[in-house]
């Protein structure tokens, strides 16, 4: 059973990560720095629970806020570059954060045991969950409480006026600007919100794995983050969740017997989707068809 709870945990964590990129992608910005923001939440929350012996919840919030602050600062220079150049710039920034953690030492000795991040060795013994006797299921539930809150918040934001404003900027920033929308405020806010969510996800992730190191937050993780909303489409948050399930459960677990061929398939999949389904797997058309099914309306029956 623990295997399935484990799956549930991974899907929950990646959903949080995917939604952090979703919010930024709504404004038309592709951020490859989400793994970096995630690492800030992970290291800071980890240090707070391990070194300062803080409770997890406030540590998570502080981790999220720290990541949001950094994301906000990144948001400003990001305004100056668009498209491919923004991808390159955010990759560079993500790597910058990763290298920072690679060189970051802050250890204290407690009871003869050294605790805290140790550069390339990583940050071991983030033991809040085992110390408090949480089972795999407990942790899975906790992750989904956080993921559920993030899903609900993003879903609500998306349907509100704020969501329309983000989408307007994403669809055509010149037109949005001439309607009176302040691009700086919108784009930087999206980065800040995305940073907060990624940081929150990272702080949960650190406690879930109990051991983090810089390599957890490399370009592969950053690619995962942006792939979910691209695969899932920007119609609504559920596309991103479906994409996480598709990638993590189907591509990585069901196809596990294929071994290394999976990675090949993963790349091919992305190319296929971008070419044939530019609005993602879960586009507005699919969404309205599903809505039709649930409201009892059969297709073609409205004649």
């Amino acid at each position: 059973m623990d295997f399935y709870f484990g799956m549930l945990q991974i899907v929950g964590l990646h959903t949080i990560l995917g939604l952090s990129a979703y919010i930024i992608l709504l404004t038309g910005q592709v951020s490859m720095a989400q793994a970096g923001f995630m690492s800030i939440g992970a290291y800071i929350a980890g240090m707070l629970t391990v070194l300062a012996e803080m409770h997890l919840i406030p540590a998570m919030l502080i981790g999220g806020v720290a990541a949001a602050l950094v994301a906000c600062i990144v948001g400003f220079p990001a305004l100056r570059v668009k498209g491919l150049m923004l991808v390159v710039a955010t990759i560079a920034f993500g790597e910058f954060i990763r290298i920072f953690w690679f060189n970051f030492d802050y250890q204290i000795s407690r009871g003869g045991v050294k605790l805290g991040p140790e550069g390339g060795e990583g940050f071991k013994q983030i033991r809040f969950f085992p110390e408090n006797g949480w089972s795999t299921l407990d942790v899975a539930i906790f992750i989904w409480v956080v993921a559920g809150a993030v899903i609900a918040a993003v879903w609500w934001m998306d349907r509100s006026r704020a969501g329309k404003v983000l989408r307007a900027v994403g669809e055509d920033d010149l037109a949005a600007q001439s309607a009176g929308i302040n691009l700086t405020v919108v784009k930087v806010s999206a980065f800040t919100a995305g940073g907060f969510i990624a940081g929150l996800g990272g702080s949960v992730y650190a406690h879930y794995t109990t051991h983090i190191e810089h390599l957890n937050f490399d370009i592969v993780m950053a690619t995962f983050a942006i792939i979910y909303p691209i695969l899932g489409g920007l119609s609504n948050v559920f596309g991103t969740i479906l994409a996480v399930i598709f990638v993590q459960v189907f591509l990585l677990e069901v196809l596990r017997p294929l071994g290394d061929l999976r990675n090949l398939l993963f790349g091919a999949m992305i190319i296929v989707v971008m070419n044939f389904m530019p609005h993602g797997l879960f586009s507005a058309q699919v969404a309205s068809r599903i809505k039709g099914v649930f409201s009892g309306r059969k297709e073609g029956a409205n004649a």
Partner: protein
Amino acid sequence: MLEVNDIVTAYGKIEALKGVSLSVPEGQITVLLGPNGAGKTTTLMSVAGLLKPKRGSVTFEGQDITGRQPGTIVQRGIALVPENRLVFPDMNVHDNLKTGAYVRNDNEIESDIESIYERFPRLKERYHQHAGTLSGGEQQMLAVARALMARPKLMLMDEPSLGLAPMIVEEIFRIIHDLNQEGTSIFLVEQNANMALKIAHQFYLLEQGLVTFSGTPGDMDENEVIQRAYLGTTA
């Protein structure tokens, strides 16, 4: 109503406007003509705050709006209908209209949308359709309607006839004429000099970043206007 005073706007080192001055009187249709690359769009964008002039000033109703944020300028009562329409393609018609009212927070937005639908019945028919699926003419109407949602006193229109069939162009010009009759001042940039001069109260010729002529449609021989509007004097 709008006074543009000796503005210089540059893209990097290249000055697209080399000191443009013009004025748009209240209640009139003012047309800006000129060949490609003369700086017509740059002029509109400098007024709308999308580009910041390096020198010179823009005043609207006596207040200096040079280099203000586009949002502030929309709030003051200037709305831009951008070149190539630039509707939000993946949003439906209704939401496109709502974005136009972004700077407003009164409770008459829905009733304004209703009167927009009366003016543009075609938009009402398609209110739930994605704007990207509309025809070019319908998109242009939507772009005009979206700008109207800001309740502007002055509308800046950038080549509304671009790429449209002659019949649709006539309809667009009729709409511009009607809007003006109802009291909205219009500052229109056009390549279609013939049509534009029919509704213009006054016009300016812009060539290579400088105003080279200003007057009323009768002031210059039409053939000369056409030649200079399309080719420029140096051609």
